[in-house]
């Protein structure tokens, strides 16, 4: 819907946002004031050329000339200052083409043979060159060329038969030129403006909506956890009681309630994490820590999990692991996620945690000899709520959020997460993070 609205607005030059209309009007006036400068300057280029070169022939009063020269210098100065300040480079070019034309006409006037000589070819070539450097739209280009040629022709005619009183009429040419360029540029700038400003506003709106969604999720997941406490707690309690009283039939069903509750809790925690990352509320807690100690903890937690499916757990690491300055909680969460994934999808194989230290970075790679993934599954592995196949979640469990979260967290920690896999052969997930994370790398 929004997309359609956006397209309609672009076609009809109507703004979706009312406040944009006002902002645009302000900008348009600012830009138009530059066309007024443009117009005045053009008049003077032509005017000065005529009076300076033909001053004696046309019999213009010297005081009249002096005043115009002074005024012109002030105008030039103001214009170029304005252009310099606002960086309206396009006006330089719209100015340059007619100026070239008039200069060409002047040279013809001085030496009529030049029109058919090599100098004549330079004019259309230079014009072409300008259009190549500065890609104006068709309408704008058309008006520039037409008015320039008109100025050129009129000048050619006028220099032979002109009298002093007729000179001011020449100012009509740049005026016509100005009006046309202004109109064609109005359309162009409106479209440009919409492309940038309106998209900017739409983007901010989308970001706000996304933030509202994330805030809502963060609050919701907190509220959802309270009743879950009761479900998990009471079912656990009943399981203990059923076991004590030898009520095995109840135990099994209670186990299902309990594990569903646990699954829901993991989902809620993951959603909370994801929404925190998206809302920009997840913070890095950077501290220096001994990695060796950290690794022992990870090993202790992950080992039973990996060995559950009859897998062997191997750690390959350099002797001097040393210190890391990064967020250790997040690093543990990511490593644990990679290890539990490997453990889940591997049976009677090997899960290897390989650590490689580089100059400023350290790479953690978890390699398994499990079921692996094909190219299509590999492409979707970091998408939210996606497991390689929807059927896999039935066999292997999981929320499909662990990897997207890990990838986002790795990015926050100034690192990258990568995956390599071959169907039937196994998978390697790896993260490469800076040994010392800089604040701005967040």
């Amino acid at each position: 819907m929004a997309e359609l609205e956006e397209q309609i607005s672009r076609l009809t030059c109507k703004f979706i946002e009312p406040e944009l209309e006002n902002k645009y009007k302000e900008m348009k006036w600012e830009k138009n004031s530059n066309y007024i400068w443009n117009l005045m300057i053009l008049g003077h280029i032509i005017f000065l050329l005529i009076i300076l070169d033909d001053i004696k022939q046309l019999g213009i009063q010297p005081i009249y000339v002096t005043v115009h020269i002074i005024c012109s210098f002030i105008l030039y100065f103001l214009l170029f200052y304005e252009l310099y300040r606002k960086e309206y480079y396009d006006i330089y070019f719209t100015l340059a083409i007619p100026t070239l034309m008039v200069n060409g006409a002047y040279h013809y006037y001085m030496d009529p043979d030049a029109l058919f000589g090599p100098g004549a070819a330079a004019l259309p070539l230079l014009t072409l060159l300008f259009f190549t450097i500065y890609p104006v739209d068709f309408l704008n280009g058309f008006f520039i060329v037409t008015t320039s040629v008109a100025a050129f022709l009129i000048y050619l005619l006028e220099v032979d038969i002109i009298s002093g009183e007729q000179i001011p009429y020449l100012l009509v040419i740049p005026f016509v030129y100005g009006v046309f360029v202004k109109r064609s540029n109005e359309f162009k700038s409106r479209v440009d403006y919409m492309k940038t400003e309106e998209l900017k506003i739409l983007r901010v709106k989308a970001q706000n909506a996304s933030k509202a969604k994330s805030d809502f999720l963060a609050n919701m997941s907190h509220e959802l956890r309270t009743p879950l406490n009761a479900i998990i707690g009471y079912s656990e309690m009943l399981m203990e009681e059923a076991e004590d009283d030898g009520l095995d039939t109840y135990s099994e069903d209670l186990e299902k309630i309990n594990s569903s509750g646990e699954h829901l809790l993991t989902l809620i925690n993951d959603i909370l994490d994801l929404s925190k990352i998206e809302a920009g509320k997840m913070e890095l807690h950077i501290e220096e820590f001994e990695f060796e100690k950290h690794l022992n903890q990870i090993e202790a937690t992950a080992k039973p999990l990996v060995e559950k499916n009859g897998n062997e757990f191997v750690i390959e690491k350099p002797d001097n692991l040393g210190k890391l300055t990064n967020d250790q909680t997040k690093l543990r969460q990511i490593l644990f996620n990679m290890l539990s994934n490997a453990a889940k999808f591997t049976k009677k194989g090997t899960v290897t945690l390989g650590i490689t230290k580089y100059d400023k970075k350290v790479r953690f790679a978890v390699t398994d000899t499990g079921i692996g993934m094909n190219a299509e599954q590999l492409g979707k592995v970091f998408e939210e709520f996606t497991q390689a196949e929807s059927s896999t979640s039935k066999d292997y469990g999981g929320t499909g959020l662990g990897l997207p979260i890990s990838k986002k967290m790795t990015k926050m920690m100034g690192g990258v997460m990568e995956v390599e896999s071959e169907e039937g052969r196994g998978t390697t997930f790896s993260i490469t993070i800076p040994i010392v994370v800089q604040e701005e790398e967040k």
Partner: protein
Amino acid sequence: MTKILLVEDNEMNKDMLSRRLIKKGYEIVFAMDGQEAIDMAKSETPDVILMDMGLPVKDGLQATKEIKENSDTTSIPIIALTANAMAEHRQEALDGGCDEYETKPVRLPSLIEKIEQFT
């Protein structure tokens, strides 16, 4: 017998946790809000306090601070209980004077381990 002061305003959580702890052989006394927790800590002198963080009247952090500031009760270990699993909340609780931290839903074996380390 280890005496535990359970500070929890949610009826169901209170009922569930206390029943499970009583079954494990603990003696439980209750407080429903932060102020009550401060008073009970003085009058009952429990061995351990399990403190929920989101409490009415005075929240868990404030109650913890006041218990730790009072010389009669400052030695009682406090385990924070909260539904916020994020690391910053853990840090907030530990900075606020709590000795340990347990996330809700409570894992009973892990909670008991933490209670035992103080008794």
